[in-house]
């Protein structure tokens, strides 16, 4: 038996000291060391910490009568020690002995001790070895299992990250192509108005710069929309001291920011060329209001210039008005342009679905 190859120390607990010698003889071929003690404190101490492979406990006291009222548990403690072979003339009720049912308990009739004790001991030692190996394997299995779970989780996490990255890259490509199409549109409009190339170049550069400002705002807004106030301020940064901007805090959807920024750019360019920004005393006011008349709901943006206007100030026809008109989209609400004495106003309507609700 494999267990017999390991050095084997056996603890014998027997009140009858005369029997200690015969145990030694019986176990001589099996055990490396046999320690025989009577019941009591010595036995308890050796059982718990003596490093024995097996304890053999003889229950029958002197004169052959079992020791009444003294359980094996009393002698051996809580059963945390090595397996136990109970030796007795009569088969005891093993449950009544008070030993925890560890399965590490064997009974041997006293008359068969010499023949069977050695093999019983080997069995118990092997059983204990197997139990320990099983327990070790369970621990290893549990460790392996948690490692597998950890790796599975990590793989799923990686997959999620890479899918999110793929989606972001796809979104970026889509945005870039859209932006190129927008630049194409601006260039197309700028180059086909029958302008001389140097003039067209200056106008194109101005529009692309405005597009760049809008793009910056859209990018930093991170999909939450951009405040109308911020768009107006960004576009009119050079002339802010002459501008009054007022209206409720509203955010425009990113698709509208570029168009609105360009519309403001066109109005401002026009104002520099022909309007209030062409003279030192001119002022600009930009106001926006939500209108709701029953089913008719829209955002109105009013651009007004006062002071310094040339009497024959032309409104920003062409690209500027086309842009502003495009906001009306299908509803076809063209911007309303009015002239007064030394005053120019352009009112444009933006559909409410361009406003970002609950940006947080």
């Amino acid at each position, binding site marked *: 038996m494999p267990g017999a190859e390991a050095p084997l120390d056996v603890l014998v607990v027997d009140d009858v000291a005369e029997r200690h010698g015969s145990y030694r003889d019986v176990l001589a071929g099996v055990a490396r060391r046999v320690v025989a003690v009577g019941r009591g404190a010595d036995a308890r101490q050796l059982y718990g910490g003596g490093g024995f492979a097996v304890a053999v406990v003889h229950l029958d006291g002197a004169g052959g009568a079992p020791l009444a009222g003294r359980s094996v548990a009393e002698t051996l403690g809580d059963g945390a020690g090595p397996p136990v072979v109970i030796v007795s003339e009569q088969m005891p009720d093993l449950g009544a002995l008070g030993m925890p049912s560890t399965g590490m308990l064997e009974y041997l009739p006293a008359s068969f001790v010499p023949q069977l004790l050695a093999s019983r001991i080997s069995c118990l030692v092997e059983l204990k070895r197997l139990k320990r190996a099983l327990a070790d394997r369970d621990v290893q299995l549990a460790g392996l299992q948690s490692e597998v779970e950890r790796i599975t989780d990590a793989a799923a996490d990686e997959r999620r990250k890479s899918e999110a990255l793929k989606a972001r890259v796809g979104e970026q490509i889509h945005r870039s192509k859209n932006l190129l*199409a927008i630049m194409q549109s601006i260039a197309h409009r700028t180059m086909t108005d029958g302008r001389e190339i140097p003039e067209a170049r200056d106008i194109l550069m101005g529009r692309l710069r405005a597009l760049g400002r809008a793009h910056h705002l859209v990018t930093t807004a991170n999909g939450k929309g951009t405040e109308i106030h911020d768009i107006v301020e960004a576009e009119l940064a050079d002339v802010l001291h002459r501008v009054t901007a007022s209206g409720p805090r509203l955010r425009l*959807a990113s698709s509208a920011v570029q*168009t609105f920024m360009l519309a403001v750019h066109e109005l401002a360019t026009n104002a520099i060329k022909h309007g209030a920004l062409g003279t030192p005393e001119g002022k600009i006011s930009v106001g926006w209001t939500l209108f709701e008349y029953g089913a008719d709901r829209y955002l109105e943006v009013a651009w007004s210039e006062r002071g310094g206007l040339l009497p024959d100030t032309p409104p920003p026809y062409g690209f500027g008005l086309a842009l502003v008109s495009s906001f009306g*989209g299908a509803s076809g609400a063209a911007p309303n342009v009015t002239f007064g004495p030394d005053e120019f106003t352009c009112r444009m309507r933006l559909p409410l679905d361009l406003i970002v609700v609950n940006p947080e």
Partner: protein
Amino acid sequence: MARVLVVDDEALIAMMLSDLLAEYGHETVGPAHSEGQALELVASTRIDAAILDVTLGDHDCFAVAEALGQRGIPFAFATGHGAQSMPDAFRACVTVSKPFDFEVVRRLIDELVAPAAHS
């Protein structure tokens, strides 16, 4: 002259398509910048053909495409994504990629409005 619905949430891109349509002798319906606007126009206006931007803000244009399909109105998609990113139901549809090749757009419009021109 055919009536062509233009759907794009970028006003500038819609404007360019309108310009091209006008240049080729057609009339723009819209442009619509949202799914809702587009569906309203499909339901209420005579449309001979349509060019649809695939992405409309947080939405897409596939409900519009279905509505057009039910009415037998020819349409094409304009997209910054590749044709391979289209859902199966529309993968066989004509797509034109952004930024536009004007010559491709012109031929596309010719093809789309051909049935209307013959009727």
